[in-house]
């Protein structure tokens, strides 16, 4: 049943949480559209938020491969994010102490290679450890990476950070000057202030297109991977590693592959961040990013790609939405500890009432074709079917 041909059937087919999420997303999208049209939300700002959400979704995809598929508790998300950002920054920025001026696309590959190497460096000593040791070892090694980046100025400019990073599309024939060459558009018909879409807007649109492309590619790749035999082995490892080993699988090798794949995706998010922000510094490897991404994955549903996408958007909503609380002066407490409290309470409530997250992965693992062709109500029992009788 596809959405367009039979919406009612499609709706009935979804589980309750899926219906809830769909309704929520649609409602929220409608609200945002309304806000955009009436000028309540600035279009460039809105696109910036979408870009951030896409970035967190990418990070969540990466963590999902490691935790959701394979059960690896990886607390070094921030390190891979940072390595991705620094990799492309050091290659392409004008103030890079190592290189500079290299086209950002090459910088992307540099970042991926660095992330892969770092994944091996972190994975080799830690992946054999039991789950909670892996957690602590990974967080420790992430701190080591951050400390090295902060202190080795000859390598990374240290605390001054890397500035002068070009946009991602620098050197591309049309896209490089797209923001400048697109005409500014002024919309005056609707109630509210006039909306001006200028260079800022087109630049933001370009960025969003980039991150959505990355998100789309990763989503499709991961969906394929999740349902493949490789994904099945990972799921077996997650639920019972001894059983997987008993079946003759080299669990260590599979875990390493999942770890590296997840790290590459996280580095992608870092690359996008560098070309969005045009400035990276050691503060971008703050461990709090790791915790945000964990909340996103758990909220969305460990192992579920749609969940990771959803979680990424929710995290950005929480992070940036609590900013607007500043406007309400009557709240007696500071906003930052309030945000921390909110995140803490969300984690606790989630684990208490819905530890599998909002969109658990079971539904994703069912091939659509299997569901569609199955009879909704068997006409006869099993014996009858086996005897070869056919439907009308």
């Amino acid at each position: 049943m596809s959405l367009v041909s039979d919406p009612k059937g499609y709706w009935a087919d979804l589980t309750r949480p899926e219906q809830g999420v769909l309704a929520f997303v649609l409602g929220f999208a409608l609200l945002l559209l309304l806000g955009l049209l009436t000028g309540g939300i600035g279009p460039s700002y809105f696109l910036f938020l979408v870009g951030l959400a896409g970035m967190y979704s990418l990070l969540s995809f990466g963590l999902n491969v490691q935790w959701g598929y394979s059960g690896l508790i990886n607390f070094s998300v921030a390190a891979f994010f940072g390595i991705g950002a620094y990799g492309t920054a050091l290659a392409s920025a004008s103030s890079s102490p190592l290189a500079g001026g290299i086209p950002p696309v090459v910088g992307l590959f540099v970042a991926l290679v660095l992330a892969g190497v770092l994944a091996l460096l972190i994975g080799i000593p830690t992946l054999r450890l039991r789950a909670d040791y892996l957690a602590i070892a990974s967080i420790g090694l992430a701190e080591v990476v951050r400390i090295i980046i902060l202190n080795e100025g000859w390598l990374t400019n240290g605390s001054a950070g890397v500035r002068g990073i070009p946009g991602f599309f620098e050197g591309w024939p049309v896209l490089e000057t797209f923001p400048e060459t697109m005409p500014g558009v002024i919309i005056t018909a609707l109630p509210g202030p006039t909306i001006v879409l200028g260079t800022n807007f087109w630049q933001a649109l370009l960025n969003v297109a980039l991150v959505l492309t990355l998100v789309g590619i990763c989503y499709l790749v991961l969906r394929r991977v999740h349902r493949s035999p490789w994904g099945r082995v990972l799921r077996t490892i997650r639920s019972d590693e001894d059983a997987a080993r008993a079946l003759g699988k080299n669990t260590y090798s599979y875990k390493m592959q999942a770890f590296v794949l997840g790290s590459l995706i996280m580095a992608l998010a870092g690359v996008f961040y560098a070309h969005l922000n045009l400035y990276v510094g050691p503060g971008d490897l703050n461990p709090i990013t790791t915790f945000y991404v964990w909340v996103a994955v758990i909220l969305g549903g460990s192992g579920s790609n749609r969940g990771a996408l959803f979680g990424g958007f929710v995290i950005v909503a929480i992070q940036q939405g609590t900013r607007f609380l500043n406007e309400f002066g009557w709240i007696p407490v500071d906003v930052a500890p309030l945000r921390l409290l909110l995140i803490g309470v969300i984690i606790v409530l989630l684990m208490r009432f819905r530890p599998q997250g909002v969109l658990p992965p079971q539904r994703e693992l069912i091939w659509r074709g299997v569901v569609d062709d199955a009879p909704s109500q068997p006409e006869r029992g099993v014996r009858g079917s086996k005897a070869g009788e056919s439907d009308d």
Partner: protein
Amino acid sequence: MSRDTIRELDRRTLLTLAGTAGIAGIAGCSTTDSDGGDGGDGGDGGGSDGGDGGDGGSSPYTIGMIDSLTGSLSAFGERNQRGKDLALAAVNEVGLDGRELAITVEDSESENQGGVSAAQKLVNQDRVPFVIGAVGSGVSLAIYESVISGTDVVQLSQNSTGLGLTDFPGLLRMSPTGRTQATALANIIADDGYDEVALTYVNNNYGSSLADAFKNAWDGDLAYDNPHDQDQQSYSGLVSEMNGSGADAWLFITYQAEYATMVNEMFSNGYEPQLYGADSVSGDNVLENTPEGSMDGMKIVVPSAPVEEQNYQDFASQFESEYDEAPTAWSAYAYDCVVTAALSILAADEFTGAALSEVVRDVTRPEGEQVTSFEAGAEILVDGGSASDVDYQGVSGPIDLDENGDPVGFLQITEVQNHSYEGIGFIEG
């Protein structure tokens, strides 16, 4: 074709047609801006304080402020807020030509990421043409690189002393560049007769740029030269190493929390070197949390307000009656940022970033009558004066923003005597 597919097609076609109609409708109501202007022009959108609806004449002028309300630099953020609140009250008592000034404050969380998203909100969502921000040279630079440069928005940082900001004329600041401080410190230490010094600095943009400037200006030996991390529980290893270096003069470029810990450790280890410090090591928090006599004789170079000036004394007494403690230079800078913004609004032709950036330096520069309060400056401007008729002398010093956006550095040398700060001299940069 079966009936089902005809129905499907109809529904799909319907949706497509509806979508196209919608876009066409919007397109029809839009016009193209021929020179593809940027989207950052400030409207007079509803601000946070006292925004009373959208009828053009009486709605407030809204500008933005990015402050470190949380995070490692939140102590500065709190002082800034106090200075800003006092200034806002002073400005709105007089009014901006009948309208009020409103400031939307966003939190940078003392981090680049937070600062950039705060700037994005202020510039792209609230569409302010003037942003006061941020605390911390690294954060200010990140905001400038990522959001501000390429737009017309004016950025005036209240607390950034890193040297890098001088290279960006579009990034203005109220706190003078650390280069003056560093040079002053090098001179003071040399004048006191020391030819080697042990140096430690906090490992961020502020600390390392100030340390670099000091190392450039210092002619003698550097017996010890190491950064340290913020927010550490103990610095006993650092202090031991400095002692082991053999130097008798120790220079600290760091923040209050870290420095208080170091002082306590020096005290409990019985070390008694001659202490020198850059601006951020001084403050009431340090005095309250260190033992008597632990720092006596320490010399600190502080960006300072001219303390014998009347306007500073008025500001200080107002601050003390409001908040029960003496103001720091950081509150004074925030105060001056707000007043400068307000004067620029009055002096500019329109409330846009481009117009404001033309006048913001001039209202603080020497051509024009020297005024020491917003009230006096507003009088001249409202009477038809222009930016060059006003020279605002702030509570933090003469300001006089130059073409790089740096103010004149007005420094005070303070010495710790009987566990309190006494001024012993002034330097003008």
